[in-house]
């Protein structure tokens, strides 16, 4: 709870995984009574460290082992092998002690009390985590201000929109000053404005409090706007660990600019490195590297063509990962 305590983890990171494994035994029905047992390595020798105050995106396709990792980091699941420490604590052995140091937000499962005003859920956190009164007030005020919850505190949770509820959930996870915040798909299903609010808040939390943030997401923009570091996991193994830019290089992923012109025109002569990949009536699709700026491209086109509307489509994570694979296969 106290942020300036010496790190018990020592020289390593704040979150440390060393050869962590999780093996599940899956029983599958193969006939009326016949069953087949199969061992599935959901997490297969995972090693990484996260320093205090880092903001890390943890991504990978469904079933890659993301949520299994998060469940081991939060003490929900016991690893089958390897060494795992969060803030110097072995999560599986000291689940309740760890709980005081971590905050968890499960994207689609709210932990707020459905029929009660939002503030009641916070009062429960206050008492359940034994947060000192002054601390609780201060943290609540901060969250209320930054997440714009003031008008929502007395509204029963069931009446909140998805975005409001997500903000409410994030505040609930932070009242006890956790050192680490785990977010599972924090922007899923949210509208653009809510996404922006959530992201802005997380950036600020990380900058001001130095809270370590680990987030899983399918939205590459989350990562782009928040994380200096990305880890890609697939088949239980770390495929990539580094900055997002590097991931784009590794995957050579491309964004798409969709342009609606006033009328049908021949393919736009776009400035390098963009190129037209598809034309359909007055609408044209241009691909350009994810690392390049969209603004320059848009300005260049707008100067020479009659634009009605345009939008940028981000590459999705699956596409990026698929490209990494293709890359490796050909290398």
């Amino acid at each position, binding site marked *: 709870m106290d942020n300036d305590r*010496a790190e*018990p983890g020592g020289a390593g990171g704040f979150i440390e995984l060393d050869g962590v494994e999780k093996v*599940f*035994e899956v029983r599958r029905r193969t006939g009326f009574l016949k069953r087949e047992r199969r061992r599935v390595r959901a997490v297969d020798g995972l090693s990484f460290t996260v320093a205090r105050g880092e903001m890390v995106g943890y991504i990978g396709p469904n079933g890659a082992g993301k949520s*299994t990792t998060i*469940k081991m980091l*939060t*003490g*929900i*699941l*016991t690893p*089958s092998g390897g060494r795992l420490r969060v803030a110097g604590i072995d999560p*599986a052995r000291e*689940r*309740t*002690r760890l*709980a*005081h140091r*971590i905050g*968890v937000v*499960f994207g689609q*499962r709210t*932990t707020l*009390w*459905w*029929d*009660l005003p939002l503030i*009641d859920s916070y009062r*429960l956190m206050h*008492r*359940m*985590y034994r947060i000192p009164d002054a601390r609780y007030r201060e943290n609540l005020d901060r969250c209320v201000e930054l997440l714009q919850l003031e008008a929502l505190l007395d509204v*029963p949770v069931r009446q909140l929109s998805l975005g409001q509820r997500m903000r409410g959930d994030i505040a609930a996870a932070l009242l006890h000053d956790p050192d680490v915040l785990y977010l599972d798909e924090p922007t899923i299903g949210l509208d653009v404005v809510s996404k922006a609010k959530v992201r802005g808040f997380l950036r600020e939390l990380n900058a001001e409090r130095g809270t370590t943030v680990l987030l899983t997401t399918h939205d590459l923009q989350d990562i782009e706007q928040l994380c200096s570091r990305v880890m890609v996991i697939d088949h239980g193994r770390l495929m990539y660990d580094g900055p997002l830019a590097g991931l784009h290089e590794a995957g050579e992923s491309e964004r798409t600019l969709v342009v609606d012109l006033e009328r049908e025109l021949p393919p736009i002569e776009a400035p390098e490195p963009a190129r037209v990949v598809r034309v359909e009536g007055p609408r044209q699709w241009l691909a350009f590297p994810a690392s390049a700026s969209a603004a320059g491209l848009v300005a260049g086109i707008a100067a020479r063509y009659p634009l009605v509307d345009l939008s940028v489509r981000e590459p999705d994570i699956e596409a990026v990962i698929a490209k990494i694979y293709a890359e490796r296969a050909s290398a």
Partner: protein
Amino acid sequence: MVDAADAAEVTAGRVERGGRVAEGLRAYRLIVAMWIRSTMAYRTSFVLTTLGNFATTALDFVAILLMFSRVDALGGYALGEVAFLYGLTSVSFGLADLAIGSMDRLGRRVRDGTLDTLLVRPAPVLAQVAADRFGLRRLGRVTQGALVLGYALATVDIDWTPAKLLLMPVMLVSGAGIFGAVFVAAAAFQFVAQDASEVSNAFTYGGTTLLQYPPTVFARELVRGVTFVVPLAFVNWLPASHVLERPYPLDLPAWVAFAPPAVAVACCALAGLAWRAGLRSYRSTGS
């Protein structure tokens, strides 16, 4: 600095056992209070469901009354005596049901993944699951049982002794403990078989239905089963035999009438172990 922290941890380890029980009770109280507030958000619904709960449990007694409209005794027991058994088990079961009756939803929580949200809280999971969906409406059952018990005490001519008087509250509390252990064990079983919540009904609701009738009605093997395997007979059959001065089922010695507290403690300990095993299996398999 580090040494001090270590020392604190050792101390924490020593007080852990007792501390965890206190911690659990505290978390239980906090969550129950939240559920009561939630219930009170829909007052009309609360009143209706409490009445419904009362009426539903009263139905069993109506069946008994209907039976006694055609006969004078069942298994050698008169209506008042059957009402005595009925009232005892209903109050005991009602208390356990009120306290932790929603534990049979555990399988659903495992299936939809919401159990995980409890595992990241700094409180024992058992306490959180026990308090889950706490329903004050279940007071309906307790009230109904208490009324029948009152009726029985008014009609049956009991030759009261200090021991019998003492046995009354002891019986009710121990009975609640035994049924509570059944609830916990049944929930632990759902870690293994998530869809099998109905099995617990056989032991909980089935158990209290069984105990509403005199032991003389049932086959000897069945009575043996609920005495030695799932010791429900200690809820009311055995202690009530002492109070009503009836022959003990299975020719058991007279002291068994006073065994319910010990049996309840043993049951709770076993249920606790079953729960720990279940939770451990969940945390290692994730399903």
